[in-house]
């Protein structure tokens, strides 16, 4: 009886081991190495590029894509957790620019070879080059570059006295919206977009949120949030929230784009995706052709009269995982991904602007995106968000103190935020 029971137990154990074996000991798959590319969600453009580059490699490699979460902060979290565990399955990563210094300082990025750096930065817009670098070195490869424009409804702006062919200031935009009893759709939600907005305002006034990043000593970080530019930025935020509509403190880019498309907002500051979105709505028959015809796009508003604005810079750069088993091949694949043709195609199909300046004069691009020259100009002027390995802390602190923008006190909010950031970095306060 006892022997039978043992035999049964042994048989069950053996069966379990046999079942587990194929998963763990399958050996290397036949064929070329598969490079894993962790991408941010898009309309399928990155997957298409992966297919094209796999085919173009002539069997040297193939690229498989894995989709990261939607929000950039969550993309960072997932990548960091995997990289902290030395995950070798990460070959290529689509990274949101503000997190690049953190990845670089943590040594999560394989160094960019000199020749690759030279080739992939030729003809690249200023902001993308700056955003892909850390400590003066290129640590990622610019792929596509994003920027915010000032979108306006031509029919509503008429009669306000604003000449949208020339740069306008935030004060003028607020006054125009107020005169027509309309609203401005800016991102007042407690999210990353709030930091994006504040940074553009501060930089546009000639200031900086971080004046000395002090990467080796977080307690030595110097902040510029008590500068006149920062105070002016806070004043603008407060003024805009007064004409921001009822959902201003909870609206993100998507809700603002909807409000603008519906004609509820006279202005919005938003990324170029709004153009693709409204044209898709026309194709779907949910809005008439007159809606996109009424869309106008201008350079981001100035913080101060006469000083060129510093529009937000976004987009995606490609990093190669430091623990990848195929670093050389990953850089080959990266060069293929960021080729001019792929950037052009990605712009045309997914609406995400190229980092390479020559794409903006391509006839197909200009036909589909009449505002392409404005985007190109905006990208040349755009400024990255504060570059620091502790960007997450800086951004979260800003979101905590500047939200809701209607309730901020412009002279004190900046110094209070600076004190919070310093305390958080010194690990003396929670966030």
């Amino acid at each position, binding site marked *: 009886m006892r022997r039978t029971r043992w035999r049964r137990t042994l048989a069950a154990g053996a069966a379990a081991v046999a079942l587990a074996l194929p998963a763990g000991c399958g050996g290397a798959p036949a064929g070329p190495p598969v490079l894993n590319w962790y991408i941010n969600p898009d309309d399928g453009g990155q997957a298409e590029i992966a297919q094209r580059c796999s085919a173009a490699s002539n069997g040297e490699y193939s690229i498989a894509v894995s989709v990261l979460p939607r929000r950039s*902060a969550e993309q960072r*979290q997932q990548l*960091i*957790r995997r990289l*902290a565990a030395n995950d070798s399955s990460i070959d290529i990563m689509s990274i949101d620019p503000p997190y690049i210094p*953190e990845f670089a*300082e*943590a040594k*999560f990025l394989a160094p960019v070879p000199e020749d690759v750096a030279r080739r992939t930065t030729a003809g690249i817009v200023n902001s993308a080059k700056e955003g892909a670098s850390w400590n003066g070195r290129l640590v990622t490869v610019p792929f596509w570059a994003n920027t915010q424009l000032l979108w306006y409804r031509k029919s509503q702006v008429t009669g306000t006295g604003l000449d949208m062919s020339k740069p306008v200031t935030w004060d003028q935009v607020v006054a125009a919206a107020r005169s027509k009893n309309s609203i401005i759709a800016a991102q007042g*939600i*407690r*999210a990353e977009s709030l930091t994006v907005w504040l940074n553009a305002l501060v930089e546009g006034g000639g200031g900086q949120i971080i004046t000395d990043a002090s990467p080796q000593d977080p307690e030595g970080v110097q902040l510029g949030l008590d500068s006149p530019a920062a105070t002016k930025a806070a004043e603008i935020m407060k003024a805009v929230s007064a004409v921001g509509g*009822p*959902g201003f*403190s*909870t*609206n993100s880019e998507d*809700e603002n784009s*909807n*409000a603008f498309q519906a004609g509820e907002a006279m202005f919005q500051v938003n990324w170029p995706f709004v153009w693709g979105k409204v044209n898709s709505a026309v194709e779907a028959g949910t809005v008439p052709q007159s809606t996109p015809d009424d869309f106008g796009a201008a350079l981001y508003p100035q913080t101060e009269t006469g000083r060129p604005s510093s529009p937000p810079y976004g987009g995606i750069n490609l990093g190669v995982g430091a623990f990848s088993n195929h670093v050389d091949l990953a850089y080959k694949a990266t060069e293929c991904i960021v080729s001019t043709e792929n950037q052009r195609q990605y712009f045309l199909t997914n609406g995400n602007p190229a980092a390479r300046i020559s794409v903006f004069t391509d006839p197909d691009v200009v036909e589909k995106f009449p505002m392409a020259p404005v985007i190109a100009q905006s990208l040349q002027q755009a400024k990255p968000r504060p570059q620091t*390995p502790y960007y*997450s*802390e800086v951004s*979260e602190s800003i979101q905590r103190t500047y*939200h*809701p923008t209607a309730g901020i006190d412009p002279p004190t909010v900046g110094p209070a935020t600076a004190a919070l950031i310093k305390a958080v970095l010194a*690990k*003396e*306060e*929670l*966030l």
Partner: protein
Amino acid sequence: MTTTESTTARPAAGAAPAPRGGSDRARAEQKLGWYLAGPAFAVMLLVTAYPIVQAFYYSLFDYRLTDPENISFVGLKNYAVILTDSIWWTSFGVTVFITVVTVAVELVLGFLLALVMMNALKAIRPVLRAAILIPYAVITVVSAFSWQYAFSLDSGFVNSWFDWLPGVSADTDWFGSTGSSLFVICLAEIWKTTPFVSLLLLAGLAQVPDVLQEAARVDGATWWQRMWKVTLPNMKAAIMVALLFRTLDAFRVFDSVFVMTAGANNTETVSFLAYRQTIARVEIGLGSAVSVLLFLSVVIICIGFIKGFKVDLSQVRGEK
């Protein structure tokens, strides 16, 4: 009758006393119990005790995930930072508020639903129970998104349906202030977990002996008197289990806050605070300390309930 029972229960005069630890059969049953429950107990230790111990260990260090070379032992400094920070106490207050409000409402609503299920006609009873339980089957994060969409300004229908109520209009931004945000969060929690409470209370209701109800009725007790003097005292254990489970669950509220407000307008809870330190800031030391404090709060709640209700669950089972 009573005399006979007590006589048979007592050992016969001159009989050998039962061996210490019970009879052979009792010992065998106890052994079998360990065989059956042992593996589950070991697994529980592995999956719960190990992370708790590890969290406590990490909470004594200054440890950032992206800077593993600079880990340093800081003792209880992380706890001092947390307990002297207003954010902790705000989060703690919000958590207690959500817990008290949701559990109180759920207890009353759950009891009413349990009564309805108990007294419903036999033919419709299964359908009714299934209908009441549906919200509990919905995944919390899905429920949170549903409520957020319902109350949001652009996609929500609540404002247009309830604009006849004072204070509600087409422009009401529910997630724009602390009070209204917490109202929606509590509402979502109550909708989601009231069925769970009602199910537990239904089990308690079913355990109240009919003979007691019958005797009270014969003695002329009103419905209200029967409820207070017979039904509720006999359901004490079920009420405690329902309250305890829900309080522990409510105290760890995370999904609704994460989805609806992301902690904006002072709606951050303790779980969310732990998430922010550990996952967003990747400060493993600080985050672990918050998690340990959350764990201790839960333990204190647990002990408080068991002591406060003075219910011995093993006695309810009839073991003692």
